[in-house]
């Protein structure tokens, strides 16, 4: 038998140094964050139940430090790696076309797919505000922050309409981000199929809209006076 002749370029790049490797990291961390977003939404929707429910849910989570901190550390790592990869890829993209086109048309791509690098940072800004707003309570206009009364924190927090508006805008960005990200992660990890991929795209669109609508329903319900502080 003969030996084969494909050899690796001098100074081999490691997995995480290649564009394909970085995209795989984005896909896996993106999937973890998606899982969190689904769980987070389901927990939040308890706001439509009597106040004791969501307050009890929050107290239960806080009484399980292993679960709480395990999840927090995993999420922090996922967010960190997701941003780190996207930042490095952004640098590569910026360098890959030093001279821009005078005219450039888009024939095939979705708005969502072309704006991932915009929706991403907006979601990050939202995330930081959201943590200060409802987790730490350091930025909580609209009333005093009581860490044992999640229900009231949410309601008084959303009664400040500019805050609600910011949440709604951020959730629309999240919708776009998820619409592209949810099917794109499969492509990045190597799955593409002439029949299943179009279904995956439809599913991504549906899930992205449902998640955004579910989250937006909360500030809207508060502003409409449907949910009142106790």
């Amino acid at each position, binding site marked *: 038998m003969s030996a084969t*002749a*494909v050899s*690796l*370029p001098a100074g081999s790049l490691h997995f995480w140094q290649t564009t394909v490797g970085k995209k795989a990291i984005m896909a896996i961390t993106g999937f973890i964050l998606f899982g969190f977003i689904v769980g987070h939404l389901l927990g939040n929707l308890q706001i439509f139940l009597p106040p004791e429910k969501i307050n009890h849910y929050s107290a239960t989570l806080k009484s399980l430090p292993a679960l709480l901190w395990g999840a927090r550390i995993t999420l922090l790592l996922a967010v960190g790696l997701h941003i780190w990869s996207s930042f490095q890829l952004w640098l590569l993209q910026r360098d*890959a076309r*030093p001279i821009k086109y*005078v005219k450039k048309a888009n024939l095939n791509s979705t708005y969502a797919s072309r704006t991932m690098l915009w929706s991403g940072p907006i979601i990050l800004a939202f995330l930081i505000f959201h943590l200060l707003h409802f987790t730490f309570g350091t930025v909580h206009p609209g009333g005093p922050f009581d860490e044992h009364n999640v229900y009231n924190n949410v309601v008084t927090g959303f009664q400040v309409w500019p805050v609600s508006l910011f949440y709604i805008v951020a959730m629309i960005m999240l919708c776009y981000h998820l619409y592209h990200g949810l*099917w794109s992660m499969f492509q990045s990890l*190597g799955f593409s*199929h002439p029949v299943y991929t179009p279904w995956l795209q439809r599913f991504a669109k549906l899930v992205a809209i449902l998640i955004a609508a579910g989250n937006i329903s909360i500030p809207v319900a508060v502003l409409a006076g449907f949910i009142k502080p106790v």
Partner: protein
Amino acid sequence: MKLTLHVWRQKNAQDTGGMVRYDVPNVNEHMSFLEMLDVLNESLIEKGQDPIAFDHDCREGICGMCGMMINGKAHGGFPGTTVCQVHMRHFKDGDVIYLEPWRAKAFPVIKDLAVNRASFDRIIAAGGFISVPTGSAPDGNAIPIRKQDADLAMDAAACIGCGACVAACPNAAAALFVGAKISHLGHLPQGKVERDRRALAMVQQMNIEGFANCTNIGECEAACPKDIKLEVIARTNRDYIKAAFTERPDSTSAGAG
């Protein structure tokens, strides 16, 4: 018909270049796009000016030499069509047309609309081939190949390496080109032998050349004159990820005794 052209003119790789306006009277709708440029070039030569440089060879859509951005669309944006196959009947009197070269760090401009695509050649040299021992030719049908695999390999092999995918990609990624080569060879028994190494070598070379990453946007698919599908990129990703986690160092003793 009468056209107004805005063309990127650049003397050489060092020149900064810029858009120059040309009025082209008497364009016949039966001309091909490149013939229209030939006519313009003849008039430029008659006036003692430098003709517009653009790449072309076969002018029948099979060699992959031609390529330019027409109004921001690679090859003009007609489905499955290289610029040499575009005819002037798609345009109408008074149209304003912008012509620009492929734009990518890995495709430096040689002159005007002609770019240097040697980066593609180096990606092919890194792994876009199969290793065949010399000797007498093997029997043509000795290796059975599943029909679906033969078809998928042929679809991918249609890539002519024109570079439209890179030009159309917002990130100037070469993922569709690399995916076409990886799919073409990887679907066939002769190419499977080096499938892992090929993915590692071609992806690395693609990155060394300065092509950025794929963001699964799909502009390349729309620009490709050979209708290569995004699916080939997923195959690159799959092959590369698998190879990255299974590749091991070369044996130091094999064949020694």
